[in-house]
């Protein structure tokens, strides 16, 4: 029972702190560009503002358009529930593994792409087609990188895989390095960051994610924005806890939990800075370079897997 309560608390914490992480990235980014930065809590204010506003719906909007914000938000929250944030071995981790996680995100993407086309504007359809192109190439990479890990840990369950790395001691596995780079590249692509997509642009013709949600307003937009913040955090928590799980709580005592919170906060802050530096020195790449980028990420994850088979699995 306490386990379920813990799981619920962790999931809530995930959902509630996602805007904070987005605010952190924004802040660091402003600093990196010599600009005055908004408050860390600006994303919360933006979400509150949007939630208060009325919804403007297109005449041609079908139920898909109206249902999509809820579907996307729910699937993203469910995905967040599966990812170990501060504690391992919670009951939620037993009900779903990494394949389900990818499935949740895929379902959200599917509905978002449908909603982009639902209204019939040129921008929405354009965004949907670009998103599906990126998604079709990114999902295999995501799966492959996690499989690399799964081969070492002999499980696709995230909690167990993390605990495998945690208790395996400080071993440098070449396969993990490949998988790490692959996963970081795919995280950038999947969360619509530079150089794949520019979350801050107003230029409709260049948009991917933003083009699909261009027609949304009010609470619908708030849910979609929030969902994309959660998604961003899902990816970065995955990176942080799979490749550097140290600090995560294996037991549920107050001390270990507090340590777990502190550890993940530090890791996310650090990863946020890495992301910002990457985004600051890069321009967005041309759309037709994206398949090459993701192809390279796929190659890395494949190499990771091969390295595991060749270098690491002998001797058992």
């Amino acid at each position, binding site marked *: 029972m306490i386990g379920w309560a813990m799981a619920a608390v962790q999931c809530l914490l995930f959902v509630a702190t996602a805007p904070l992480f987005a605010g952190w990235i924004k802040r660091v*980014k402003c600093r*990196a*560009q*010599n*600009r005055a930065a908004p408050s860390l809590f600006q994303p919360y204010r933006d979400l509150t503002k949007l939630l208060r506003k009325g919804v403007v719906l297109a005449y041609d909007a079908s139920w898909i358009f109206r249902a999509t914000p809820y579907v996307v938000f729910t699937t993203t929250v469910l995905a967040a529930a599966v990812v170990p944030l501060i504690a391992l071995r919670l009951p939620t981790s037993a009900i779903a593994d990494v394949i389900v996680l990818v499935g949740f995100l895929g379902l959200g993407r599917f509905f978002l792409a449908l909603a982009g086309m639902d209204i019939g504007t*040129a*921008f929405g*359809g*354009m965004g949907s087609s*670009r998103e599906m192109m990126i998604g079709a190439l990114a999902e295999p990479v995501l799966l492959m990188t996690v499989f690399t890990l799964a081969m070492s840990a002999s499980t696709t369950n995230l909690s167990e895989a993390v605990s495998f790395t945690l208790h395996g001691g400080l071993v440098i596995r070449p396969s993990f390095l490949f998988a790490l780079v692959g996963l970081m590249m795919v995280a950038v692509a999947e969360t619509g960051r*530079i*150089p794949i997509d*520019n979350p*801050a*642009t*107003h*230029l*409709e*013709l*260049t948009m991917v994610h933003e083009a699909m949600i261009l027609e949304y307003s009010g609470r619908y937009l708030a849910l979609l924005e929030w969902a994309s913040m959660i998604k961003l955090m899902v990816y970065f928590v995955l990176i942080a806890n799979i490749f550097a799980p140290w600090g995560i709580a294996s037991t549920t005592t107050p001390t270990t939990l507090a340590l777990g919170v502190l550890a993940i906060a530090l890791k996310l802050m650090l990863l946020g800075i890495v992301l910002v530096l990457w985004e*600051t*020195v*890069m*321009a*967005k*790449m*041309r*759309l*037709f*370079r994206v398949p090459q980028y993701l192809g390279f990420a796929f190659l890395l994850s494949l190499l990771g897997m091969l390295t595991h088979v060749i270098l690491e699995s002998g001797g058992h």
Partner: protein
Amino acid sequence: MSASDWREQLASSVQSTSAESMPGLAPAQLLHVSAADWGKLARVAKELGCRWVAGWGEDRAEEILVNACLEKKGAYMIARARLDHTAVTLPSHTPYYAAASRSERHTRDLVGVHFSEHPDARRWTRHQAWAEHAYPLRKEFAAAGAPPLQTPPDDSYPFLQAHGSGVYEIPVGPVHAGIIEPGHFRFQAVGELVLNLEEHLGYVHKGIEKIAEGRDAAALARLAGRISGDCTVAHTWAACMAMERASSLDVPERAHYVRAIMCERERVANHLGDIGAVLNDVAFTFGFYQFARLREDWTRLSHALLGHRFMMDRIIPGGVAVDLDPAGIDAMREQIRALRPEVEQLIAIAEDNASIEDRLETTGYLDPVLAAELGTLGYVGRASGIDFDVRRDVPYPPYDRLEVAVPVYHYGDVAARVKVRGAETLFAFELIERLLLALPDGSIANPWQPPASELEGIGLVEGWRGEILTYVRFDSAGKITRFYPRDPSWLNWPALEKLMRDNIVPDFPVCNKSVNGSYSGHDL
């Protein structure tokens, strides 16, 4: 061959009479051409390798005049045809000069001159909201117009269609996200590849040409400053130059220098802002903010020293309205000393970044042959091998005393246009320093004297977008009867359509920004 030889050749090849000497129209010569030979004129001019510069019509109570300005090697010629009100048809120049197409559509829409053999019968400036036979620039048309209570939608413009499987259409605008002016862009695309782009402009038609009628010189200068806010100095200068030439008014030396300093300041401000904006369009936000910061510092000093961030209304007929004191001169020098290394450094950062290079190089390629065909001007032309700059090739004071370096590239892509603008910025710093150093003493304005008789004049100024040609005609009371400012955007907008071909849809914003035509300057 001397520069003016071609003008004699052209004049002798068509039925024409050289007009009496028109000092106001210098450096151009006026040539009256018979209406029947109007098309032949274009054909011969094309064979001679002339550039088509501008075209405009004018309703004179007894007749309708149609003008076309041509240029070669810095020598200008204004050809003029007289038409009777009962037969307002003229052969088109468009079959020979693509550049003439939109201008002739504009003249057809506003003056009601029919151009035979013009390949495009669609309206241009005058949207569907106007009645079929309402020609706003005819004398009988009231300046206030007769707008209907509700403007009918402008929704039936027949864009060029593309057919085939997988071809789709993307309408963009006229209302855009972000703070830019209204204009409609229609893409025909397959996947992300652009098959064709068609522009539809005219949404910011303000009736500049019509409301200029009846103004005095000072009021016209103010109006000219509002044709396009980002090049207010150059437009005001061109309008004042035209009026001063028409009335043979001398301008004090010092005023020439101050005008040029302001014009160069305007060039720097816009180049800095736009280089940053190009970087923003490829999501290199760091560059955007740095260039925006430099531009802001720059415009703030303009405000402090000259009284206006964009230096609007600082140029007046007869001189300038504001003087520079020694402290101001020092402040400008000091700012250039501080800014130059920063600009150089930022340009180097942008040029050394491989991801930016990948976005800008080969993107939006404008072939030099096509660029010449379309008569593109300014940095758009200079990035595609067109080595022309009014300041150097048809120098007007104070540039006749200065050596003007003109950066020219042949790559024709976005990167080349950015390079030209970077080089022009750095050279403008040098020009301002030289102008400040040589700034003569004396008064800053001579009192305006309206011409006693009907007189015409043209002004030619190299604005930051390129050559601006302004035509004015005074009536016998010293009031304006015709004002036509030809913004360089008229000739650069069509280039954007062409350079987008075979690019991908998401590269449009950066291509558009690299050309940065003025909507307002074009729509008038």
